[in-house]
């Protein structure tokens, strides 16, 4: 499994050239690239979702969809809403995380603000030009703690988490972490891989899931 990479700007230029505004100051010669959409949010979001689905193509075995926003400097609020809605829909339908890369600080700010107005469990990672990653959305503390552990430790299973927290690896404790990890996976913030289970005799299934933050798809294709 590997991530699928898309550059947003050429997709937009082909789909709707007028939604890209490239402006240069008369004196300053500063160039700014802006992604904006029309006025009807519902229609915009639906049209953009279809455009993005087409650009992604039929679902294969991708571990993540990585959408590069560079060199877009500014995303208008209506375009931000459509971009978030479409990405969240893709994560929900395909069960594959979406990660934004090349995100400017102002665009990140807009994404985070807009995400607060949307009622959805799906979230995503936004990574800036220097590789700094930010979560777009707010996690409950219990899930944020687990995400922090995954970031620190790398790929981990429910029993790894129980061990990390120095808890007995009882079925009850492992199940609790399994539920948390499943919740985290539903948000679209982590990848998971089915691996051969631990050598412990009580593990009757013979396999388990290992989870890692979805942004790791940018650097390593498999856990």
């Amino acid at each position, binding site marked *: 499994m590997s991530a699928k990479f898309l550059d947003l700007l050429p997709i937009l230029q082909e789909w709707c050239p007028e939604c890209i505004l490239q402006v*240069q*100051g008369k004196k*300053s010669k500063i160039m700014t690239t802006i992604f904006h959409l029309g*006025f009807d949010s519902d229609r915009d979001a639906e049209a953009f979702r279809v455009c993005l689905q087409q650009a992604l193509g039929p679902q294969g075995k991708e571990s993540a969809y990585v959408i590069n926003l560079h060199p877009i400097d500014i995303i208008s*609020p*209506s375009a931000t809403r459509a971009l978030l809605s479409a990405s969240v829909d893709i994560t929900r339908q395909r069960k594959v995380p979406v990660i934004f890369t090349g995100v400017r600080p*102002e665009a990140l700010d807009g994404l985070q603000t*807009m995400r607060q107005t949307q009622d959805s469990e799906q979230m995503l990672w936004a990574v800036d030009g220097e590789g700094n990653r930010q979560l777009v959305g707010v996690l409950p503390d219990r899930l944020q703690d687990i995400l922090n552990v995954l970031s620190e430790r790398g790929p981990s299973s429910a029993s790894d988490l129980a061990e990390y927290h120095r808890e007995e690896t009882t079925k009850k404790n492992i199940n609790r972490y399994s539920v948390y990890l499943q919740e985290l996976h539903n948000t679209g913030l982590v990848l998971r891989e089915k691996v051969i289970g631990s050598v412990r005799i009580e593990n009757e299934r013979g396999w388990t899931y290992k989870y890692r933050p979805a942004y790791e798809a940018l650097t390593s294709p498999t856990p």
Partner: protein
Amino acid sequence: MRMRKPAKPPSGFVQLTVDFGGSSPGGSSSLPTVVVPVETTFDVSQGMREVFTFWEEQKTAFHIVFNCRHLELAEAYVVGESEVFDSDETYLIGRGGLINTAVFINLLRCCQSLETWSRQIQQKTGDSPIHSIRFEPPNPSTKVGKLWQNLAFLNEYDPGNPPRVEEFQSRYITPILWVSKENEQEVLQQFIGWLLDISDRLGDPLKDDLIKIAIEVITNLVKYGFIHSFYGVSIWPSGQVEIVWSNSIAHLKDWPPEDTAQGIITGLQASTRGGAGMDYILHDVLPRYHGLLAVNCKGNDLFFHASRRYSVFSQYSPDRAMLLPTSILFTLHLFCPTTRRKSEEHKS
């Protein structure tokens, strides 16, 4: 109601005819002229009252002149009168206080409302009562005359021939931009280009926020206001930012849901259609810049605060309906300390 005699145009005034439709051929120059004085506190109802009073008395077609010769800056609002910030822009007294550009946009709203009224009369009677609307500008050598020029005010109101959008003369204020479907992209290009050129004056992330606001608002104006929309921005050295926009709502059948203050609040906050602009302004921009959004619509004056509260200053009264503007006016006040600091550093 104060009755006003038909007035003559000021001396030196040359009458041109603007076709509002339905004017009878010939004889236009012999029509009477209603002169409406414009002062610092001019509001839309004032101009409409003058014109309607004349119409009730005379029932004849006429020209209108808005006499702005005695218009002055709202000096009462200005801070540090002795300090002139920029010799090229003498209306920037002190660090640029509130100059109250609303009077200029109210002039245009008044013209717009009178135009709508004139068309309605024309539909009933076949004749358009208003044959032309002109402005008698302030003395160009005065502060307010310079402001008039930099706002790209012309000497006549003619929606078919609006000021050209590239006439940006100032580093502090834009012209009042006439927005339509035809020039939407051009207005955005020019406005954003202007912001990029003055970005040395602007704090982060004010520039990007001003771009986002302009995109959302201008798209809104084109979708809802059609050709009758105005947009203008002032960014004072004091760090105060004033963004004004207005569009006609006379043609909207289902907005606002009610003419009351509550109806307008509901229409702005709870609209299920439209873009993300109003949410962005109310929930993101206002708190970030300690801002205030003032809305004037159908005689209601509303204020949306950074704290997410709103207050109602005055409310719709059916008795005054005839004199109310047929447009909605938004004034967004923001304060950006970084922009103020940059101006102070520049000055020192």
